């Protein structure tokens, strides 16, 4: 490229409208990149809803589209949590479904024939483009200059960082898909309101806060962060009427908006999580009152007044809070909240939370995996905020501290840290680039200094002590240092893009409903056992046949097989889940009455032994045992599932409790028959199974998928001749009755 054209290019960026055009083009490209990098799974597999929770959201969206908003609002779902049912309309965050529903109806009005599934699949990528834009706006509020480089970099980072992609690939139709956009945008509006002291921006902030509350349980993050920011500002002596107007507008309107969501209801005035916001609201009134008093009365009297007033108010408020909490008006901190402070709390007290992998504390490599170079630029960016500490920079500092802590406690909260990391890193990089990417040498402050400037930099090391007395020379003069730094930064950024693409492609783009494997010739082979079995259930069982499975598969069964389930991923009723855990981990004699009482028709288990699929039920089995033990410590004991040497085994050495458990029997029933005698092998656990497989008396095999990943059993009806199932099954197998009666265990099986 000639110098001439370079100049032309450089001068093209001068005009104001040209800059705006360039920014719009760049932002559109960033949005395009953000969307495109999330489409791996659609291209590799198909337009399919991923994993577990998205299947519920998808089902709810279909219900909304089919039945309208009011029916959706009043939706009582009797096809989950049989026989309890679930007040679905009142126990979900409707923002996601309503958003897709609105888009669907808008497109239908334009007579564009689009399937609701495709809207759901592509909602998260579309919103990631918006998130990039919101990050641009937020970062631009942090810089004072007209340069948008920090904003554009932040948009780019936000668009492709794996920490956010992990929850927003195409098909990942979860609340986070739109919530991160709302989070960033609410923060932007908050900063805007705070900077301008504008009620309009405050009201807009409250509006988007309301949308956020309607979309994700993580709204509590905003509810706590904004008061914290206000509190820090007050403590720093930065109270201003701008803060008062912004905060009060946001709190009053935002709380009212959030209370419109049935699932939230009166929580904002009842639970401890929301108390900081309320407290700061009250505190701000006091501060405002005091600042008024201060302007009205003389200084000496004001001091006394201040101390008395502050102490009195604090004591009254604290006493009020304690009384209200002990009286039960304000709910104490929830279990999930405690688990944020003590990471081992959940493991001991709420195994159901601990059993979810995304609730585990974050391993340190995860930070680098999800954020790559941003994680080391992040502190630099926060440091730069201190350089120029305005109100909005305090927000970044507070957010950074708060977000880092929570990201360290729980893997999934990495998501809330990501925006601030992107903003801070963009500030850092843009300050580096803004310094080094200026082709013109800075004008020397004094003429005689300019000549020895280059010498000075060489001699700096040796003459450091002497130089410090003189005025430091600010600016980079050498093209070499400029070139080196800019090249290094460019390489880092390119590596970042490579890393992001690699992580997205390899770690975050698997639908987990469909598994991929390679054929010997290198072509892709799809293992589609989940849908095979779900489709079989959907087509060839009664419409109201109840399916019992571990809660992980509840949403999928509801979404794909369209059959009632006992428990699902909503996990609102721990006892019900423990009941299923008990049925799975007990002997058949115990399980059968439980299944009869819950009108179970089919039992579904996931078995990976044939294929080496490690996410199967035997590997999750200990959690079932633990959760059941939490409710029935006398009947289910985790210890009994370990060998005396403390091993968890499934082969011939397995414990009696293990071998007799329903889960073990269902997993390995008839599995031996697939192998030559004595060769049966479990490829997940890598063990050889005993020669004689388990027998099932109260269940019969109904369907097993092609690769045995899903096994479905039918619960037998009561015996026609009034025998118990053990003897009936023994008779069927041709044993004599005498032998059958010798079996141990409770003999009376009849339920009714």
């Amino acid at each position: 490229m000639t110098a001439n054209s370079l100049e032309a290019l450089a001068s093209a960026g001068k005009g104001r409208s040209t800059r705006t055009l360039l920014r719009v083009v760049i932002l559109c490209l960033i949005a395009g990149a953000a969307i495109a990098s999330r489409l791996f799974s659609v291209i590799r597999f198909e337009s399919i809803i991923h994993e577990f929770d998205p299947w519920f959201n998808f089902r709810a969206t279909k219900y909304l589209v089919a039945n309208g908003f009011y029916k959706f609002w009043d939706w009582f779902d009797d096809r989950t949590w049989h026989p309890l049912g679930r007040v679905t309309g009142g126990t979900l965050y409707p923002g996601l479904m309503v958003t897709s529903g609105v888009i669907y109806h808008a497109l239908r009005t334009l007579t564009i024939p689009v399937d609701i599934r495709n809207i759901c699949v592509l909602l998260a990528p579309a919103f990631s483009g918006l998130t990039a834009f919101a990050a641009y706006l937020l970062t631009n509020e942090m810089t004072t200059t007209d340069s948008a480089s920090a904003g554009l970099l932040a948009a780019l980072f936000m668009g492709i960082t794996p920490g956010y992609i992990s929850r927003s690939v195409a098909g990942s139709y979860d609340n986070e898909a739109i919530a991160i956009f709302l989070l960033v945008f609410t923060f932007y509006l908050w900063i805007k309101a705070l900077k301008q002291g504008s009620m309009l921006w405050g009201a807009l902030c409250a509006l988007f806060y309301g949308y956020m509350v309607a979309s994700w349980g993580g709204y509590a993050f905003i509810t706590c962060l904004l008061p914290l920011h206000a509190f820090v500002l007050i403590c720093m002596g930065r109270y201003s009427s701008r803060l008062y107007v912004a905060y009060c507008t946001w709190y009053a309107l935002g709380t009212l908006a959030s209370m419109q969501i049935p699932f939230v209801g009166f929580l904002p005035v009842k639970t401890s999580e929301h108390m900081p916001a309320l407290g700061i609201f009250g505190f701000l009134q006091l501060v405002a009152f005091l600042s008024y008093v201060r302007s009205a009365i003389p200084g000496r009297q004001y001091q006394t007044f201040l101390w008395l007033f502050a102490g009195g108010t604090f004591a009254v408020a604290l006493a009020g809070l304690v009384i209200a909490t002990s009286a039960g008006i304000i709910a104490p901190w929830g279990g999930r909240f405690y688990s944020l402070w003590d990471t081992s709390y959940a493991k001991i007290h709420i195994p159901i939370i601990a059993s979810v992998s995304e609730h585990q504390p974050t391993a340190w490599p995860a930070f680098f995996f999800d954020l790559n170079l941003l994680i080391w630029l992040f502190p630099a960016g926060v440091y730069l905020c201190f350089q120029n500490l305005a109100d909005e920079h305090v927000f970044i500092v507070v957010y950074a501290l708060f977000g880092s802590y929570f990201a360290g406690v729980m893997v999934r909260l990495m998501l809330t840290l990501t925006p601030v990391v992107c903003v801070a890193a963009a500030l850092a990089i843009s300050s580096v680039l803004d310094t080094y990417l200026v082709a013109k040498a800075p004008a020397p402050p004094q003429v005689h200094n300019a000549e020895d400037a280059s010498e000075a930099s060489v001699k700096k090391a040796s003459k450091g002590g002497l130089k410090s007395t003189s005025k430091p020379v600010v600016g980079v003069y050498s093209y070499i240092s400029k070139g080196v730094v800019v090249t290094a930064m460019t390489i880092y950024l390119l590596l970042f893009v490579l890393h992001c693409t690699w992580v997205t492609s390899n770690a975050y783009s698997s639908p987990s409903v469909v598994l991929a494997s390679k054929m010997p010739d290198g072509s892709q082979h799809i293992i589609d056992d989940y849908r095979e079995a779900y489709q079989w259930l959907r087509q060839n069982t009664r419409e109201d046949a109840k399916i019992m499975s571990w809660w992980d598969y509840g949403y999928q069964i509801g979404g794909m097989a369209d059959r009632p389930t006992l428990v699902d991923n909503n996990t609102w009723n721990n006892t019900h889940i423990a009941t299923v855990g008990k049925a799975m981990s007990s002997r058949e004699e115990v399980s059968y009455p439980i299944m009869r009482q819950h009108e179970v028709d089919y039992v579904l288990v996931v078995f990976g032994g044939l294929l080496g699929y490690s996410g199967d039920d035997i590997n999750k089995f200990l959690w079932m045992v633990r959760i059941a033990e939490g409710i029935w410590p006398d009947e289910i004991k985790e210890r009994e599932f370990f060998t005396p040497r403390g091993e968890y085994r499934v082969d011939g050495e397995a414990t009696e409790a293990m071998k007799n458990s329903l889960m073990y029997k269902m997993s390995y029933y008839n599995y031996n028959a697939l192998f030559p005698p004595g060769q049966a092998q479990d490829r997940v656990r890598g063990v050889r199974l005993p020669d004689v497989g388990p027998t099932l008396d109260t269940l019969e095999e109904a369907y097993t998928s092609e690769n045995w990943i899903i096994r479905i059993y039918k619960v037998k009806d009561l015996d026609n001749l009034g025998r118990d199932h053990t003897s009936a099954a023994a008779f069927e197998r041709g044993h004599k009755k005498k032998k059958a009666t010798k079996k141990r265990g409770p003999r009376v099986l009849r339920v009714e």
Partner: protein
Amino acid sequence: MKTSAVFSAVLSLLTLASARSSTTSSSGSSSRADLPSTFTPPQVFKNANLVHVISAEKNYIKETINVVIENIDKAAQDEYYLPFTADQVSRLGGVEVKDRKDASAGLFAAEVVEFDPTSDTQYLRIQLPTPLKSGAQQTLGITYYLLKAYKPLPASIKQEESQFLTFSFSAYCPSVYTTSKQKTEVKFSSANVPDYTKLPGSGDIKQFPQKQGSKLTYGPFDEKPAGAVEPVQVRFEFTKPVTHVSHLERDIEVSHWGGNVAFEERYTLYHRGANLSSLFNRVKWAQSAYYSPSTSALKEIKFPLRVGSVDPYYTDVIGNVSTSRFRSNKREALLEIKPRYPIFGGWKYPFTIGWNSDAKNFLRKLSGDSYILNVPFLEGPKQPEGVEYEEVQVRVILPEGAENIKYYTTIPALSITDAEVKVHKTFLDTIGRGALVIKARNLVDDFRERELIVSYDVPFMASIRKPLIVFGSAMVLFVSTWILGSVNLKF
């Protein structure tokens, strides 16, 4: 059994005789409405010779009646009646009647006359193109199909057992006329026919039926009165799936701008054969896959599409199904799909397939603005055991602005129940496009190659309406954004 048959024959003769006097005037150009409920066909014909061929080779019944009819009335007659039970009429499809001796006469008009909905006997009226003179003879070839014709016996079998079906019919071909001589042949797909009703023989044949390989022959019988029936039942081995498509929706979308014809077919498929006596056993199924014995489960469906078909897809209600293959070259375009699971008796599997094709394979522009589209009415699977369709809905979606829509099809007219032009809105349509919806019932895969010809006009203005509207709306949007953007709003 024999006595009851004779009794019923006598009874039907009586009713015929009594009705004759009252309804002699109703013959001729009478429509359904003005047939009184006491109608019985006039005894104006005699079946001089009748050969009834029942083919049970596929999973539906194909019956062919070749009959020499003779006018025994004094006047010339042009209406021949064929009786069916009410149950049969609901399952009857694909009726075609032609002259065996004179192929140029074409197909004869045939319709079901519903004179009394509660009556168990319904009549098919065949309109002879030229009235048959008194004493003259004509050879009719009547072909029709019966769906859902079998009952599995035993009703449930083990996974590896072979399936047996039963079929009941009358050894004497049901007729409202006296039949001088007749025989009934039944053909099967396998020679394993363990049970069949045996009748005393006549003439030099001691016992009916005679079995030759996979064919049973009842008859020849001597003269039988009108309405004579002799119920017989056969039970035969059928080691293939009894595939039944209860509902098929076939969409054909024509795009002039895209130069494309898009096909989509939505099947609701059932297996009507013997159910599994014990539930599905994957081990046995996996083991049997090695020596691939004949099984009654449906494992694979093959769709030979028209050459030039591209971009096929195969999905069901929960997404794409990856177990399909598409072989496409200059000679064939074969789509082979595997259901998610083998379909056993009593199981159900709904699915969707679709593909595209270049418009020039099907569409031709006539003079001016008129076009003619020639597509297959039915393009279902081609299986050795056949496929039967209970309800078929073909929807031809024409470009926006198409008018003067006419169609012609070679599907038997009796099978078509309804045809209308509806409005279908899609892809930024403003007035919607004409969609010709044809409903048919009781079809089988023998009609795969039958054509559907649709002619329509698209005026030039209608064809450029959409680009203009889209351009105009986009302009309006931009201009209004520009105007709104230049309004100065200070917060």
